[in-house]
């Protein structure tokens, strides 16, 4: 069947299904209604003026941190490589501004460890480095190299180097690209805006990846609360006449954008913990990453900026901001009118899986899709009470785990029981903690329990 007509059928099917209860569709995994709070969905992305100073962390991916390639006093240009390392799982880091390096500092990072940051005083000229040239891709190897040179990591939150993801061992068995435009986290709208504002880049990027990886098709999974984005993507696919790309409407529930959930929803394939998506013939990439690739293969400017949703009750003017990496949260908040109320919690990422930081001095990095500043009321989490065994956590878990049983086993440090209940399948989506009427930090306990199991496995 023609891809476009298939896609429209899917759309119509969805419209019909929307009337009835979508979650009754047999293929859906458990999910929850965590609320959407997409306050900034209609806010066109604003470009932030160049900050006076940017501090670019050298660890913006999973894996070994990069080594600095510049020294204090060096002049740098936009897109110039300032950090790299010769490790398999890594991605280079580029300067997001032109200016002078005033120091290389070590500082506590947002995740509690230590981080090296390159401090650059900007000159405001934004001169583009002569190394930024449109990549010439002639074969698969060159494609992977170009992706690595672009510095791309998963922009949805995992920050896994994309060049590694695009180069699986079993490349012949990988037949589907899934572009993750679900954006199931409440508050965040940066992917939504990307799909609306950089529609062409998304389609071009996806087509490029599908072409060079030799895949059968690419599927852009988008939640049903972003029908405008779906329409825009469909129109663009039709306009370009691309046959092996289509959109897929996901229920607007949490956590449909989680990698393993998304794979199951789109293809019906099960990707259990410990497996890579490539093991089930799929590569999943965030829509912002794909949009970046679309742009990169046109102009060759590496990953130096991204859309960031700034929201929360403590923010004066919530909006989407095109932010250069290394911009401090403080500068970003100042651009959004500053704090309306005293912030009690600053979250990098969404409210379900994002990380609360200890300071607004931290820098925006590649996987940072949102900055949420909650005031006292919004940050309030009621005290934990006793488990009443209601089973809501089990009903909420996309992988049918038994969170209350896992929490009890963790509290008893019972590794055998944790294994019996398959704690390693937990992806930490936080659905169980969200629905718990006793407000137990179940998801957090699972994270600790996974650490416990790993420790026990080493012995």
């Amino acid at each position, binding site marked *: 069947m023609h891809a476009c007509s298939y896609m429209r059928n899917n759309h119509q099917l969805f419209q019909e299904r929307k009337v009835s209860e979508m979650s009754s569709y047999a293929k859906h995994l458990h999910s929850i209604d965590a609320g959407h709070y997409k306050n900034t969905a209609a806010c066109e992305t604003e470009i932030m003026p160049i900050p006076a100073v940017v501090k670019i962390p050298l660890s913006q991916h999973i894996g070994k941190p990069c080594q600095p390639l510049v020294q204090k006093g060096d002049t740098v240009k936009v897109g110039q490589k300032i950090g790299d390392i010769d490790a398999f799982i890594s991605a280079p880091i580029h300067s997001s501004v032109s200016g002078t390096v005033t120091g290389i500092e070590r500082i506590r990072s947002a995740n509690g460890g230590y981080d090296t940051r390159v401090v650059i005083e900007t000159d405001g000229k934004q001169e583009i480095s002569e190394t930024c040239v449109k990549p010439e891709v002639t074969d698969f190897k060159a494609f992977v190299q170009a992706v690595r040179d672009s510095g791309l990591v998963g922009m949805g939150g995992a920050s896994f180097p994309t060049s590694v993801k695009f180069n699986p061992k079993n490349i012949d068995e990988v037949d589907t690209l899934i572009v993750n435009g679900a954006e199931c986290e409440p508050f965040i709208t940066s992917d939504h805006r990307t799909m609306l504002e950089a529609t062409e880049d998304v389609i071009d990027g996806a087509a490029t990846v599908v072409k060079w990886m030799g895949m059968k098709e690419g599927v852009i999974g988008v939640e049903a609360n972003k029908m405008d984005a779906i329409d825009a993507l469909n129109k663009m696919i039709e306009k370009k006449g691309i046959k092996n790309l289509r959109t897929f409407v996901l229920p607007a529930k949490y956590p449909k954008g989680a990698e393993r959930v998304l794979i199951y929803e789109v293809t019906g394939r099960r990707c259990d913990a410990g497996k890579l998506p490539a093991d089930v013939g799929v590569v999943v990439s965030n829509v912002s990453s794909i949009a970046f690739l679309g742009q990169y293969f046109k102009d060759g400017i590496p990953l130096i900026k991204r859309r960031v949703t700034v929201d929360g009750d403590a923010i004066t003017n919530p909006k989407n901001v095109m932010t250069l990496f290394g911009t401090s949260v403080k500068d970003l908040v100042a651009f959004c009118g500053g704090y309306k109320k*005293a912030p009690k919690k600053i979250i990098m990422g969404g*409210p379900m*899986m994002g990380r609360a930081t*200890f300071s607004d001095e931290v820098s925006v990095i590649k996987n940072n899709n949102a900055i949420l500043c909650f005031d006292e009321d919004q940050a309030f989490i009621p005290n934990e*009470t006793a488990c009443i065994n209601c089973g809501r956590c*089990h009903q909420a878990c996309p992988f049918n785990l038994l969170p209350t*049983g896992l929490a009890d086993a963790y509290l008893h440090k019972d590794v055998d029981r944790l294994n019996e209940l398959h704690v390693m399948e937990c992806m930490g989506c936080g659905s169980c903690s969200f629905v718990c009427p*006793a407000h137990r930090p179940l998801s957090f306990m699972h994270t600790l329990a996974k650490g416990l199991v790993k420790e026990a496995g080493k012995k």
Partner: protein
Amino acid sequence: MDKNITAGNLTVSSAPHIVTSLDTAKTMQLVLIALIPALCASTYFFGPRVLLLTAVCIVGCVLCEWAYEKIMKKPVTIQDFSACVTGALLAFNLPANFPIWMALIGCVASIVVVKMMYGGLGRNFANPAIVGRIVLLLSFTSQMTSWPVARGMGVDAKTAATPLNLMSDGGQIPPLKNMFLGMRGGAMGEVCAIALIIGGLFLIWKKIISPIIPASMLGTMFVISLIYYAVKGGYQDYNALYMAVYQVLAGGAVLGAFFCATDYVTSPIMPTARLIYGCGIGAVTMIIRLMCSYPEGVSFAILFMNIMTPLIEKTVTKRYYQSLYGGGKNEK
């Protein structure tokens, strides 16, 4: 604003940073709301003493919990409304003319012995209201089994027999319409089946209780009585189907199915385990009703299956995860 507005003022906690507004207290409040239709019906049938007895039981249970926690120097947890639910359910299991001081003994047995001494809410292995009722039934058997006449029964007597009593004595049983609407003898909360079903459906609609337990329990009772009466050739003039419906509506089955058996703490979580649990209650109830000397067996059946719950849950969980994710840790 102050430049250092965030310094030392930020909370750092694990995700998720937002949680549902439905907490334990709201859950319990919804259960209390679901009991209101039955309370109204009961007040209509047995008069205002129903309200007095319900109030006494609720206050008694809350006071017991509060006093126990004060004496034991534990944090007070009465604001979670679970003691109110226990009190209301205990009251619903009593005859409307039950002496108040005896009801208070039931409250102490429910809250102090069954719930608090085992560690409070979430730790009790048996349903407090059910055990409270059983304690009262065994201690004050005559008061617990002399039922006042409900309005509209058209019986000119001081006391009325329950339909199950009548049946075990081989007497004339009230018609199905009376069983549905509540014109029959029985504990004050259990007579009006239609009000209880409305409350139960409300809880299912609000996703407070899972329909598995009530459906499997009442379904099992229906099937067992259908077979029993089919083999026996009906009861008096009534056929097996009529009697099967009758058995489901009689006694405390509907109250037990929607409100007592579904108690979170003492029922399993896994859907399969809930099915086994519900079927178990239905089966044990029917065994007691049809073969034992007690005319009614819902509370004994619930208590029995409460005790079985951890065993059912354990077996089901183990099998479930084996089939879902494969065997032990060595497999991956």
